[in-house]
């Protein structure tokens, strides 16, 4: 029965050469437990192509020294490569200026930087911050810490049953106390793509800055921060085929200049005496201490790799993958897809009737299928759907239609075990 059903759904034909791309990713050749690895946990962390691995090795074997310090040749090379990576990142998101790209350890640190640098200086008692139900904990908790410290208030834009922001409620949340909007570009738990451009336009017309958490958007679509006109845009390297420990806070230069430093230390100062310290200019003002130089250069290579494939081509292929996977799961009895927004990135959260997500995850793993199970650091989303957790398959451009079939077959195995 099930085989007949799946036979009715034809796999879309694509000009996207996924097999050639897969050859770039050594880890995809792994066979855990003797079965091909089906890696569908890309929203948690993506895999790294050989080109990025090679770049890290090249840096570490021939170019490494500390940056922005010594006059010796290696330090000059390392500094130049690090700043070249900043230029690449600026181009990748179409920032107006390179100095608007602050390197951080990841999205979490980027949002914390905005909270300390902007929030603690400009948000006070009685002020309001607008967030949404879809936010990852990393775009909730820093603002809660700020609200508690300052006596500010957090207001929450809810979602509908499909997992779309209740955009009709958005304008009503604004008043004279509104000081910031924080919104995910793409929901990590559900995949919903939020109408951030429209939300930014409304906020900016009222003089309210907007921080976009782009961790789940930059790997899947072309992001243009000037077109969005956002004030801050945060994302991570390791979800973007780059290394862990590196990420970016984009901020408009005029805003970054008005902000206070986040961390104190070397590199973020112009001069220090015990009487007075003068801070450096942006971006160095926000990059205290020795940064993860290799990771930044590796991320530069990762965005080169993605740009060569083309973000529009990636978005198109992933959309085909999502449509195919959604069609397959929709037709499976006992499977409920959680998050059915009209605009979605390639994330499929689902529940199986009568089976806890952790049992699903353990059994899928036995078939070599790696998915995420849990609350996805988005407990307000779980509360909205009244589930403790979901199973989440999240796709990347190196996944295949055959891997969707492997997921479906493995879900059927789980259902057999629990029937």
């Amino acid at each position: 029965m099930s085989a007949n059903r799946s036979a009715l759904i034809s796999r879309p034909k694509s000009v996207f050469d996924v097999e050639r791309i897969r050859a770039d990713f050594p880890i995809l050749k792994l066979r855990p437990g003797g079965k091909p690895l089906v890696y569908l946990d890309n929203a948690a962390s993506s895999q790294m192509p050989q080109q990025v691995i090679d770049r890290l090795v090249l840096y570490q074997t021939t170019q490494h020294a500390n940056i922005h310090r010594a006059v010796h040749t290696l330090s000059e090379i390392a500094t130049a490569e690090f700043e070249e990576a900043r230029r690449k990142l600026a181009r990748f998101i179409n920032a107006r200026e390179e100095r608007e790209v602050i390197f951080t350890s990841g999205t979490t640190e980027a949002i914390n930087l905005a909270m300390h640098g902007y929030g603690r200086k400009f948000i006070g008692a009685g002020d309001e911050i607008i967030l949404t139900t879809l936010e990852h904990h990393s775009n909730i908790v820093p603002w809660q810490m700020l609200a508690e410290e300052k006596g500010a208030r957090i207001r929450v834009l809810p979602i509908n049953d499909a997992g779309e922001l209740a955009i009709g409620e958005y304008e009503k949340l604004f008043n004279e106390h509104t000081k910031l909007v924080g919104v995910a570009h793409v929901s990590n738990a559900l995949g919903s793509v939020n109408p951030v451009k429209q939300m930014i336009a409304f906020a900016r017309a009222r003089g309210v800055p907007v921080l976009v958490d782009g961790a789940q958007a930059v790997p899947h679509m072309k992001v243009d921060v000037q077109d969005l006109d956002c004030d801050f845009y945060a994302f991570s390297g390791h979800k973007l085929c780059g290394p862990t420990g590196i990420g970016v806070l984009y901020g408009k230069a005029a805003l970054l200049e008005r902000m206070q430093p986040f961390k104190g230390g070397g590199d973020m100062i112009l001069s220090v005496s015990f009487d007075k310290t003068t801070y450096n200019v942006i971006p160095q003002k926000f990059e205290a201490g020795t940064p993860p130089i290799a990771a930044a250069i590796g991320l530069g290579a990762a965005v080169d790799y993605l740009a060569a494939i083309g973000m529009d081509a990636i978005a198109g292929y992933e959309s085909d993958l999502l449509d195919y996977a959604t069609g397959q799961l929709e037709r499976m009895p006992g499977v409920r897809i959680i998050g059915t927004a009209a605009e979605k990135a390639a994330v499929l959260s689902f529940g199986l009737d009568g089976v806890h997500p952790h049992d699903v995850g353990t059994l899928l793993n036995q078939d070599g299928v790696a998915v995420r199970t849990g609350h996805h650091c988005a407990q307000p989303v779980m509360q909205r759907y009244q589930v403790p957790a979901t199973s989440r398959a999240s796709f990347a451009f190196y996944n295949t239609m055959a891997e969707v079939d492997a997921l479906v077959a493995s879900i059927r195995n789980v259902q057999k075990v629990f029937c």
Partner: protein
Amino acid sequence: MADPRSLYQEVILDHNRKPRNYGALAQASHKAEGHNPLCGDHLSLALNLEGERIAAIAFQGESCAICKASASMMTASVKGKTLAEAETLIQEFRDMATGQIDVDKQAHHLGRLTVFAGVRDLPTRVKCAILPWHTLHAALHSVADISTESENDPMHAPIGDA
């Protein structure tokens, strides 16, 4: 490493489908709540001690199959046992699940509970199996609430969650 799929044996699936001693006790001398905030597992445990003996025991809650089957089999195992016997089982179950004893080679009192031995190969699921036993330990020592993530929990070992 044993095939972890063997953890999902018929006896465990059966206890998950039809948990024994499931529900509430009208009157209980000892109670505790167990939580695993990482996966949302939650169970309430109630029991009646008559002298040194566990005369009645019941549990209810929402959890994965491993946790529910573990709770079901635990209640069946400790019912009618003395406090000292129950404490021995708690210790031995914990040692089995964390791989500190090999149930094939060392003496123990676990009986059919050895179906959970395979959980030691699934580090992320050990807490699911142990939660009911920690909750029993808490009830017997009159601790009202335990969490797998609280610092005084003997199994405390946070799992990353990004």
